[in-house]
């Protein structure tokens, strides 16, 4: 029997606002525990929530990017459950009236485009963070109250590959709408999977399980693959899949049932009595659409059509939002589109990967990059030298011109100077001329090396080669 996977994804994304969803304490990551909070985040008795305007704006941006219907009357609900990371004993969320409904995201899998329908997007708040040790846990409230958006697809995903393509694309949406750093490994983007299987061709849904809190896209794919096989085995053995919550064991690459209290599903949602319905200003909502940053797909198209990048270059470039943003800035006053792309995807990316840092952490600016490109263009430096200059700029932040001068890198491209020099070298290397005339090509290599040695590598290699060949030929004739 062949089975079909029915998958729905729930993605939580932390918004990079300055302050929390309902309180005026800062949104941070990795700060000293319990230093970035106030009484609201700790749910001291008597506190009340006040909604963050920018969090709403960010949610709306993502709604637009996902082609959703936006509800301009915001309403919030309480989700009630007792848990040590939930200080109020309830989470403020939007159960009944999510801000966004009925959206979609197009993904490409195996060269085919598929539209993944999205049911809803709602706003809520993050929980406190717990650190687990051998015999105890510690609670840090810095994360408590950080704005979250949750995006829920319809059960429209049919494979791990689709899930992974969807998540990549969604992550890109978060990055290009500039609402989150969407780092799954740091938890600012988290994914829950709902998965069931059914015999191919069947219209009935099987019993689904939920796999909670995946923290990388590859884990999502692995979890789906494991879980669908597990369910398949149960069904083929004549068993029944239990509706349960599972987690993904990263070491064993397996999903494991979680210990869950019986009534935990009874969240007793009801309208949050401390937040009146909020009527958004229609013009403000429209303005957010107007000001929406250019999305990845549009950029990709511009890169190909206008800047002449290849499909794969353009695609790679937009997949690194940071590089793409940098590229946008660079090409504003530099029309060497291809070289800029190559340097970013080659030297720059290589350097970042090697050092495991972000572009922001280096001292490279778009202005410096275009300056370097100019030097390459005018053949003032070789591409090998360009690499050295780039590294230097990234670590030291000096102006490329200064680096080139300091290192004495300027290329010698003057034909007269080079001709004089080559003549001198030929005079002193008659053996090489003979070798050349008897057809030994490596004589050229040797002679170029001599030129480079004399010029400390500053001779323009292209011109040197051309000149050397010309002068050699003259001598052997």
């Amino acid at each position, binding site marked *: 029997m062949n089975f079909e996977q029915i998958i729905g994804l729930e993605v939580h994304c932390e918004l990079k*606002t*300055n*302050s929390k969803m309902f*309180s*005026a*304490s*800062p949104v941070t990551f990795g700060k*000293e*525990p*319990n*230093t*970035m*909070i*106030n*009484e609201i985040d*700790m749910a001291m008795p008597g506190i009340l929530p*006040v*909604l*963050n*305007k*920018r*969090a*709403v704006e960010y949610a709306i941006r993502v709604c637009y990017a996902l082609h959703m219907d936006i509800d301009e*009357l915001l309403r919030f609900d309480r989700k009630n459950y*007792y848990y*040590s990371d939930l200080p109020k004993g309830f989470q403020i969320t939007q159960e009944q009236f999510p801000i966004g409904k009925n959206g979609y995201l197009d993904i490409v899998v195996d060269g085919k485009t598929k539209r993944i329908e999205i049911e809803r997007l709602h706003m809520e708040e993050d929980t406190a963070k*717990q*650190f*687990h*040790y*051998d*015999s*105890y*846990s*510690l*609670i*840090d*409230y810095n994360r408590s109250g950080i704005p979250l958006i949750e995006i829920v697809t319809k059960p429209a995903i049919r494979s791990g590959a689709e899930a992974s393509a969807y998540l990549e694309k969604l992550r890109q949406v978060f990055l290009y709408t500039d609402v989150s750093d969407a780092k799954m490994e740091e938890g600012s983007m988290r994914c829950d999977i709902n998965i069931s299987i059914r015999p191919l061709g069947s219209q009935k849904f099987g019993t689904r399980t939920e796999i909670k809190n995946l923290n990388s896209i590859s884990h999502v794919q692995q979890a789906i693959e494991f879980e669908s096989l597990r369910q398949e085995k149960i069904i083929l053995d004549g068993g029944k899949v239990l509706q349960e919550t599972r*987690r993904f064991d990263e070491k064993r690459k397996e999903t494991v049932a*979680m*210990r869950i209290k019986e*009534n935990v599903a*009874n969240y007793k949602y*009801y*309208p949050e*009595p401390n937040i*009146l*319905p*909020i*009527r*958004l*200003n229609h013009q403000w909502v429209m303005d957010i659409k107007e000001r929406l940053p250019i999305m990845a797909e549009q950029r990709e198209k511009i890169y190909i059509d206008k800047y002449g990048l290849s499909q794969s270059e353009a695609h790679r470039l937009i997949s690194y939002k940071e590089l793409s943003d940098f590229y946008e800035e660079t090409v504003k006053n530099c029309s060497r589109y291809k070289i800029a792309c190559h340097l970013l995807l080659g030297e720059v990316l290589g350097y970042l990967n090697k050092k495991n840092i972000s572009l922001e952490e280096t001292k490279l600016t778009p202005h410096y990059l275009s300056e370097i490109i100019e030097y390459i263009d005018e053949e003032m430096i070789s591409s090998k030298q360009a690499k050295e200059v780039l590294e230097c700029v990234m670590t030291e932040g000096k102006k490329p011109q200064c680096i080139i001068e300091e290192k004495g890198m300027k290329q010698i491209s003057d034909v007269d100077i080079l001709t004089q020099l080559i003549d001198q070298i030929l005079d002193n290397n008659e053996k090489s001329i003979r070798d050349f005339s008897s057809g030994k090509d490596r004589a050229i290599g040797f002679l170029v090396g001599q030129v480079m040695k004399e010029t400390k590598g500053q001779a323009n290699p292209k011109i040197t080669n051309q000149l050397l060949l010309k002068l050699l030929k003259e001598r052997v004739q």
Partner: protein
Amino acid sequence: MTEMKTMLKQLARDTMFDISDDEMPALIEEYNMFMNHVQFLESIDTQDVEPLAFPYEVETTFLREDEVSHIISREDALKNAKSIQDYQIKVPKVVK
């Protein structure tokens, strides 16, 4: 009777406390009164009536600007907690 006791004890558990046998008679009495209330409301026709979550129909337009304006000290944050370690609240290990 025991069935109701079991039900009420479970309900207490769901509310995260225990009810002793001493407390049970009063609870049953109040539960019955509460259910009378529920029954009475059932006699009122509320077809096509929307629930009212606030005292009156009201909307707001007020949203907070995204500015950090209030942080408390770590000492204040933990002042009322009974068990602290490394500036965090300490609890028994969370069973995953």
